[in-house]
């Protein structure tokens, strides 16, 4: 199994930390992982993205052109990454702020309105975990048990009290994600 | 009067004065009349009297004293031009139990090494900086230095330093005295026996303060460069008194508050 993912959105949406939790969970489940962020001034207020690879084998290139899954959280990222999803791959997006929805018919498209839901129920800080939950529903590449271990490892000790909240968000995300039919 | 033989003269009981053993037994490479040799000697006398040879690490600069390690019988490092305070910073931080000093000229300390000088002084490194200011680049053949006086001639200001074109002489000693990291900033000379004794006392005080972790002790010695100034040693000392001292007045600029 090798899963190559791009997660992209605005800086501050928790793109990098979502990737980090996924990567750490992969390690806990004894998988090979890599996490390669965009870096530099574009991260300050602009777009941020991270390539995460989780695999049973040694990972070759940490930098990729095509992905099994793209998780897209803003319009710029939609424009940039829709066409980088491999044929038959997955595109997951949050509809908040999206003005041009995906149009490809050769991939599986899913929508998760996590931003709306998170603000509705007052869980905006763990919005990214909802999105991660939605992804894991489609691609359970790491089990819930190891996601918890990944959270423990990647969150600093002083934030461990927030782990239940994160897990709750993941569960909500699993229910929130819906397939989109491109006509 | 009876002839005194060589053997009698060198008998220990006839010894009235000798150079310190910490000066290596070889001819100095400095021009006759230059102040470097005297400062070297005062430095080594202080180290001998404090009995700190095994605890002292010195840093030679680029300039006339680039070969200082040839004459001083202590462990020494030779630094890239201007960087001696950076070396000293690391040595003292890695070996806080040592005495660490730099020995630098005006070009090294106040031109190319200004950043290292200011920042080592500002951080308050517990080191001694000995600064020889003769207002000229001696080793490279008498070019203008940051401390060359207005109107003073050098090979790169052959008609005298024109401050409109070449800027002003830098009083870096006064400048470092304003920094919180310096504890003792003083200016001396070695052109008369009385001044030599004062310089030696200042060097000793500087070593003691640095060991007590008081910050940077900065000892400037205004010196002559009879070769570079194209004068005899005697003329150069007189010229120094008349021209250098008014611009670079001798005395303490900053003393530690008790």
């Amino acid at each position: 199994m090798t899963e190559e993912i791009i997660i992209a959105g605005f800086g501050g949406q928790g793109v990098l930390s979502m990737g980090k939790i996924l990567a750490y969970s992969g390690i806990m489940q004894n998988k090979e992982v890599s996490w390669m962020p965009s870096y530099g001034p574009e991260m300050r207020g602009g777009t941020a993205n991270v390539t995460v690879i989780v695999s049973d084998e040694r990972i070759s290139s940490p930098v990729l052109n095509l992905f099994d899954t793209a998780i897209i959280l803003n319009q710029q990222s939609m424009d940039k990454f829709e066409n980088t999803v491999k044929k038959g791959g997955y595109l997951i997006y949050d509809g908040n702020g999206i003005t041009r929805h995906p149009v490809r018919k050769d991939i599986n498209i899913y929508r998760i309105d996590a931003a709306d839901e998170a603000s509705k129920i007052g869980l905006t800080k763990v919005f990214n975990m909802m999105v991660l939950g939605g992804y894991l529903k489609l691609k359970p590449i790491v089990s819930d048990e190891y996601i918890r271990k990944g959270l423990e490892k990647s969150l600093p000790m002083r934030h461990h009290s927030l782990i239940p909240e994160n897990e709750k968000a993941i569960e909500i995300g699993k229910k929130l994600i819906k397939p989109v039919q491109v006509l | 009067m009876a002839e005194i033989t060589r053997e009698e003269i060198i008998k220990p009981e006839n010894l009235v004065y000798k150079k310190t053993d910490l000066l290596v037994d070889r001819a100095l490479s400095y021009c006759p009349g230059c102040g470097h040799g005297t400062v070297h000697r005062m430095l080594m006398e202080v180290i001998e009297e404090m009995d700190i040879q095994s605890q002292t690490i010195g840093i030679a600069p680029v300039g006339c004293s680039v070969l200082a390690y040839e004459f001083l019988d202590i462990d020494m490092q030779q630094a890239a031009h201007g960087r001696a305070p950076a070396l000293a910073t690391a040595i003292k931080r890695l070996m806080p139990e040592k005495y660490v000093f730099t020995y630098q000229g005006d070009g090294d300390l106040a031109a190319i090494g200004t950043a290292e000088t200011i920042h080592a002084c500002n951080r308050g490194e517990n080191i001694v900086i000995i600064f020889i200011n003769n207002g000229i680049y001696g080793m490279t053949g008498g070019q203008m230095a940051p401390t060359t006086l207005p109107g003073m001639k050098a090979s790169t200001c052959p008609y005298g330093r024109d401050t409109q074109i070449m800027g002003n002489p830098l009083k870096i000693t006064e400048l470092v005295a304003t920094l919180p990291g310096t504890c003792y900033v003083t200016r001396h000379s070695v052109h008369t026996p009385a001044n030599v004794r004062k310089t030696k006392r200042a060097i000793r005080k500087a070593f003691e303060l640095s060991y007590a972790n008081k910050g940077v002790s900065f000892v400037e010695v205004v010196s002559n460069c009879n070769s570079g100034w194209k004068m005899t040693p005697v003329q150069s000392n007189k010229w120094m008194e008349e021209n250098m001292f008014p611009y670079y007045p001798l005395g303490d600029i900053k003393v530690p508050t008790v």
Partner: protein
Amino acid sequence: MKELRLMKGNEAIAEAAIRAGADGYFGYPITPQSEILEYLMVQKPYETTGMVVLQAESEVAAINMVYGGASCGKKCWTSSSSPGISLKQEGISYMAGAELPALIVNVVRGGPGLGTIQPSQSDYFQATKGGGHGDYRLLVLAPASVQEMADFVPLAFELAFKYRNPAMILTDGVIGQMMEKVELQEFVPRWTQEEINKISPWATTGKTRDRERNIITSLDLDSNKQERHVLSLERKYKAMEDNEVRFEKIQCDDAEYLLVAFGSSARICQKAVDLARAKGIKVGLLRPITLFPFPKIPLYKLAHQVKGMLTVEMNLGQMVEDVRLAVNGKVKVEHFGRYGGIIPNPEEVVNILETKIIGA
């Protein structure tokens, strides 16, 4: 069991240095390697192992602090990225001349000039051919994973002290910024003064009565002596070439074509090998791990086996010159590069291999 962590390459280097018993780090911030100094300041090794950490006023000061510390026989290191490494070159040359062991990390970004903060490999020449003035070489290690970032820190110190020569870890923004899992080695205590006296009797630690004074200098105004010094340096570099060549061969046994790449480019080429083999092209990868000494002999041997070689580098073609020297005209060697911070992708590597080497 060794400790397993998910770390950025830059963090792994910093953690590895603490664990390797390093005595002092002196640095200056520059993207994409500032995490090194930041990580050290968070960890505060000066309170645990006693390692000194200091943010210097410039790269120039930082490398000269390393010079001062290394002259005392201490394990000192610095890190920077391309423009900062250019500033350090004077100090590096002095250290090579004065035969001082130290570690310099270059997390390369694209140039020339201020260039870009994105990854590049355009400092290959600077790292492997000397970099500063004068006849000298650095030992140059090129990690291709976060694990190797950590592993090469103690290795670099070991080699630096073995040869009394500065060693460089030449990496780039990809390896520096990415996170992978790392097995961290156990803590090695810092050397005691007694150990330093034994390992580095040349060090300036304060002259005691039982020995002559120690002098650290790169100066000798006597040309005959200076010539002898340069020749002794040459013997040292020759010994490195005889003993320290490190490389990795991937799928080379039946290879008809060869990719040659180091660092992050080698990772991309690994994927390209898989893609090419899926298309039925028998291609292998030789990854130099030491860039100096360069794996000339393994390349020369492979030149008798393969029909062509392609180097993949994020530069205009630097390592390709060493590959051509190594194979000495035996096979065709071409170069493929991307510039200005653009990372080549595996698909285009295969494409170039097909057009420039196989189809040509």
